[in-house]
């Protein structure tokens, strides 16, 4: 059972208040597809992913980025229920989408980097630590239903 200190809860609230999920989502997913191009294997139906510019301008990438961040948003607002929140999504990613769970870490890293871009020095050591702890909990929950 994950334990969150008061300080960590406060940090997550403070950070997330400033996150525009409609911006961060598309940017993080675009960077995933650009920096780790093998992840494109999961997005065969998304159309043109042939160059960084194409990926950044692709409306399906943007839409999907927003969906991913909306799910993270729910998790942030329910830090004590992350495991349950992701049961169904974990099954879907395993049984239907067949996503290698290592990719969750890659996307998490991209989200961290996009936040660093946006927040600059406000994304300090402690904030990064707390946020990556959150990401690790999400990734664990998403990987749980794989067998």
């Amino acid at each position, binding site marked *: 059972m994950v334990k969150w200190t008061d300080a960590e809860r406060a940090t997550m609230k403070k950070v997330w208040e400033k996150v525009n999920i409609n911006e961060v989502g598309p940017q993080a997913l*675009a*960077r995933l597809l*650009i*920096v780790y191009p093998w992840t494109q294997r999961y997005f065969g139906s998304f159309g043109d992913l042939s160059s*960084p510019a194409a*990926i*950044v301008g692709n409306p399906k990438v943007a839409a999907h980025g927003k969906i991913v961040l909306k799910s993270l948003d729910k998790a942030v607002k329910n830090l004590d229920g992350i495991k349950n929140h992701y049961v169904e999504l974990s099954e879907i990613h395993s049984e239907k989408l067949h996503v290698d769970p290592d990719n969750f870490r890659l996307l998490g*890293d991209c989200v*961290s*980097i*996009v936040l*660093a*871009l*946006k*927040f*600059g*020095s406000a*994304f300090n*050591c*402690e904030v*990064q*630590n707390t946020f*990556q702890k959150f990401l690790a909990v999400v990734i664990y929950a998403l990987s749980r239903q794989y067998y």
Partner: protein
Amino acid sequence: KMSLSAKEKTLVKTFFSKVSGRVDDIGNEALSRMLTVYPQTKTYFAHWQDLSPGSASVRKHGKTVMGGVMEAVEKIDNLCEGLRNLSDLHAFVLRVDPSNFKILCHCLLVVLAMTSPEDFSPETHVAIDKFLASVSLALSEKYR
């Protein structure tokens, strides 16, 4: 073996020349984050008095690490040959588990994004990620 295109090498060299004046801070920030966010990395520094972010030991070592990175930028056309001494050091003396290279690379990327958001475009991001991965590979060349 992963290789960088000419364009990627240019992106890397350009980016690092822009931040060359801030490498000490970058090294300190990256190392501080690594030790905090991935506490298992502290096992390599048990001989330090103070492992807290920004401590004298951390600052000094951050500078050393960035010295290595900047050397790698200069030798970008032949990392394995160019980083031979560092490779020997990591393989036979330090024996750092190579999985930790990925961890430090991620922390470096976060800090670079933070300090130069206007220059850290997706194209630059992938070039630097590849470069750091190549450096990591060169450093673990001699491991076995």
